């Protein structure tokens, strides 16, 4: 175990950073812990920002990630509004924005990601928002009051969640997606088509396969989105949801190897001694599930939490590499999407249930084993799928396709307790 003289310094105080600090303490790590967050807010939950908060169902006071006494109670020195600006790996020191330096015994980079900017004229107009932080969400929420027509640029999960929430809040919403279908990075065509139809049925207009030429405004405020086919979509609010860029600069400038994120093994170890990384910034070696790539940077709470737990195990000398099936969820309108595992283009796809009923699961089979599952309003099938993927279960496609067939016998049960 690290000596108590030099602290564990965690750069980044969102899911990965907080989970790592908490897990370290649960595992008995007894050196001091300094948790640096560059936002002014105490660590908060991000999923409700694009869902319940915008729709008015979740209040700001419900967002705290931990209770106010947690940090002091666990001996975690939480410092807010503090930015790390450089690393000195040889001297094991972090330089902060105020010029001071902080020595570390262990360093964790949980610096997250930032929104990808839209590189077109007019992107800096007032009324053009992104959605990543609490302040971003509060700004959109404030703008909603005087918004009648909104344009969401980007038909990924964040864009579609925002579009659904803005619709619930009373705005007329158009989603512009440059690819020919929605969620093309995560879903096969049949699922993309389902999602498009579901949003259209709920009043959202979609512009698929369309680029944005520019954003038009007057007196500094956005008034319209000009599409690449010359059409103009009038709107008084624009929200960008075109993906994120991992915040690798601290690591890269210090010479730590990065490629699509900070490269780490299944324990969160970077190429530098005593430097770990977790969360959205980490391109992490993955457990060998069917269809899972050798490594990936997975933007999800599960990946942040499980990556942080794996990294925390290194601190106490009892390494427990990442072993969980990747999963994440999304809420759009009355639809709860739950995704388990990672499908590949050549997987066999089996539909269980009826897409028109908004209750179904798509199972993906690779070499006969369940590799992934995408569920809509089928939480039990999602939970079961996570077990089946972990157990590399083989299930006859006829059974998967029959909603009346019980799938539980195919998984190995765990005892109650």
């Amino acid at each position, binding site marked *: 175990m690290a000596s108590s003289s030099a602290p564990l310094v965690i750069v980044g105080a969102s899911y990965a950073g907080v989970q790592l600090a908490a897990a370290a303490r649960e595992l008995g790590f007894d050196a001091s812990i300094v948790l640096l967050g560059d936002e002014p807010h105490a660590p908060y939950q991000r999923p409700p920002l694009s869902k319940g908060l915008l729709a008015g169902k979740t209040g700001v006071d419900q967002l705290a990630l931990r209770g106010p006494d947690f940090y002091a109670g666990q001996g975690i020195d939480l410092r807010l509004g503090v930015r790390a600006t450089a690393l000195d790996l040889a001297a094991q020191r972090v330089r902060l924005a105020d010029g001071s330096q902080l020595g570390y015994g262990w360093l964790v980079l949980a610096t997250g990601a930032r929104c990808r900017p839209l590189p077109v004229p007019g992107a800096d107009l007032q009324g053009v928002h992104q959605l990543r932080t609490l302040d971003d969400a509060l700004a959109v929420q404030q703008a909603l009051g005087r918004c009648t027509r909104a344009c969401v640029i980007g038909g990924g999960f964040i864009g579609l969640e925002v579009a659904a929430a803005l619709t619930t809040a009373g705005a007329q919403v158009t989603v512009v997606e440059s690819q020919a279908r929605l969620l093309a990075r995560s879903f096969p065509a049949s699922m993309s088509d389902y999602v498009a139809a579901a949003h259209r049925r709920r009043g959202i207009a979609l512009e698929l396969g369309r680029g944005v030429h520019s954003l038009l405004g007057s007196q500094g405020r956005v008034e319209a989105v000009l599409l690449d086919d010359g059409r103009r979509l009038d709107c008084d609010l624009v929200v960008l949801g075109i993906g994120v860029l991992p915040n690798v600069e601290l690591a890269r400038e210090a010479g730590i190897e990065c490629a699509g994120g900070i490269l780490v093994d299944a324990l969160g170890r970077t190429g530098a001694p005593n430097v770990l990384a977790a969360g959205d910034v980490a391109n992490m070696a993955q457990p060998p599930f069917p269809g899972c790539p050798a490594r990936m940077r997975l933007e999800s*709470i599960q990946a942040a939490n499980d990556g942080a737990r794996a990294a925390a195990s290194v601190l106490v000398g009892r390494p427990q590499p990442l072993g969980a099936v990747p999963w994440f*969820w999304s*809420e759009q309108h009355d639809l*709860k999407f739950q995704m388990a595992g990672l499908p590949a283009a050549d997987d066999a796809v089996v539909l269980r249930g009826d897409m028109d009923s908004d209750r179904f699961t798509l199972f993906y089979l690779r070499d006969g084993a369940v590799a992934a599952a995408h569920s809509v309003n089928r939480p039990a099938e999602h*939970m079961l799928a996570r077990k089946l993927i972990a157990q590399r279960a083989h299930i006859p496609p006829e059974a998967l396709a029959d909603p009346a067939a019980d799938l539980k016998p195919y998984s190995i049960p765990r005892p109650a*307790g």
Partner: protein
Amino acid sequence: MPTITYILKDGSARSIDARTGASVMETAIHHNVRGIDAECGGSCSCATCHVYVADDFIDRLPPPDDMEDELLDGVASGRLPGSRLSCQLTVTPELDGLTVRVPETQV
């Protein structure tokens, strides 16, 4: 304020004065009760806020809706008659004295 008691994995009990209107999960997170993970933040998506409700309260709670009922079938520690997702249990004055037990594992 209604008092909610959480029985932790080590068998110890923590009694908390809960705010009416908060969920049993939110109350636990706010007071740092260990063993309730709530990875999805209370959107009934992850089944990591599973608790076992004490027998005498099972019938005094509104029954689980379809979504919760389905998720309970997939909890990491097995489902028992008192199994509930604590994010779906809203604290009311009538729940004063509610006792819930934290399961062995949530993931």
